[in-house]
């Protein structure tokens, strides 16, 4: 029992990200409304961002900006254990902005769909397509 608890506590970042990802995936597959699907896609993206940022953390390390980079104290030895991993931050930095851009495209498509079918409910749209 204590093993299980310590395992859960040691990896709780993964539990949170998997739970968020499941919520997003369920919304993408099962929701009928297109805007709710888009919201689900955004929750999914948030889960991935959380996952990446959480794997970059190191215990006892600080943000990846070097202290005393310039000035009289410069040119001291930098140890990798003192700073958290910068690479996931770089990837997620662009992913957030690209996420906003894809959200914009998705909403634009939803507006076009609404203009054509006068509804955002997927089953009604499919019924209208079958009628044609």
């Amino acid at each position, binding site marked *: 029992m204590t093993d299980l608890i310590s395992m859960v506590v040691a*990896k709780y970042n993964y539990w949170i990200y998997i739970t968020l990802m499941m919520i997003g*995936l369920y919304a993408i*597959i099962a929701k009928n409304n297109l805007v709710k699907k888009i919201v689900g896609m955004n929750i999914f993206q948030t889960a991935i961002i959380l996952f990446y940022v*959480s794997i*970059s953390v190191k215990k006892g390390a600080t943000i990846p900006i070097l202290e005393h980079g310039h000035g009289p104290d410069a040119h001291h030895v930098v140890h990798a254990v003192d*700073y958290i991993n910068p690479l996931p931050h770089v990837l997620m930095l662009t992913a957030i902005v690209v996420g906003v851009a894809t959200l914009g*495209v998705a909403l634009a498509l939803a507006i076009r769909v609404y203009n054509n079918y006068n509804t955002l409910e997927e089953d009604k749209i499919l019924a209208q397509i079958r009628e044609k």
Partner: protein
Amino acid sequence: MKIIGLIITVTTGALLFYAAGDFPAWSDPASPASTYLSPHFIEKTMEETSVPNIVTAVLADYRGFDTMFETAVIFSAGVVCFFLLRISRREDEEPETRYYRHVLTGVTIQLKEGHEIPPSADFERIDSMWTPPDLIIKTGCRLLIPFVQLFALYVIAHGHHSPGGGFQGGVILGASVILFAISHDLRTAVRRMSEKLIGILCAAGVLIYAGTGALCLLLKLNFLDYSALAGVLHVDPITARSHGILIVEIGVGIAVLATMIWIYNNISSAGRYRQGL
């Protein structure tokens, strides 16, 4: 459909929960993600690029190609929103009855088809569903927007030494213009920043980025190897990398700024560019 979705979701979740057992523990300094490439970035960034913010250096220098195409993705997202939504048919743009409001007195006049008013700054074009913007919100936003924009410029310019850079600063700049469009109306915002200008800025941002890379190529080094700019900028190659990063960050900022406004303008008015939200 709901049952199938639930089964797929639960199966994926269960597999991931099972796989998470093999993952390195939370905040483990010896995890695989933190041991191969990132120590090189952390230890060598300062001597190779002279930029204390490692994220900025990796973003614009070590992974410059990646970021260039991310900027291209954002540019294409703006263009796609434009092509999907923008309605530029004449009859749709010019309804039969138009309304103009005299700014100083607040008098609204209605013009039938074929009539024109002499062009003057006293009248502004409004829609039939126009509601006056709230005075408190309008004044509050007018006080706030300059500081938001100043902060955005600081975030872009100081991205080498503190958290920030082109993406973040560009989004804040775009948000300030969107705040203006929300607090007044879309027509006023488009009059300040026309659609043509937004399109040009959006392309110019990507062009600055790619052009810097091409300039390095012309100066007989690799694409996006900013140390080639040392001769042009009259600095040593390491400082030239730092300056090159700043140039491409400005390009990214401009592209992101324009794309955010473009997407907002098109989506909030469904491509009609009338009142907006």
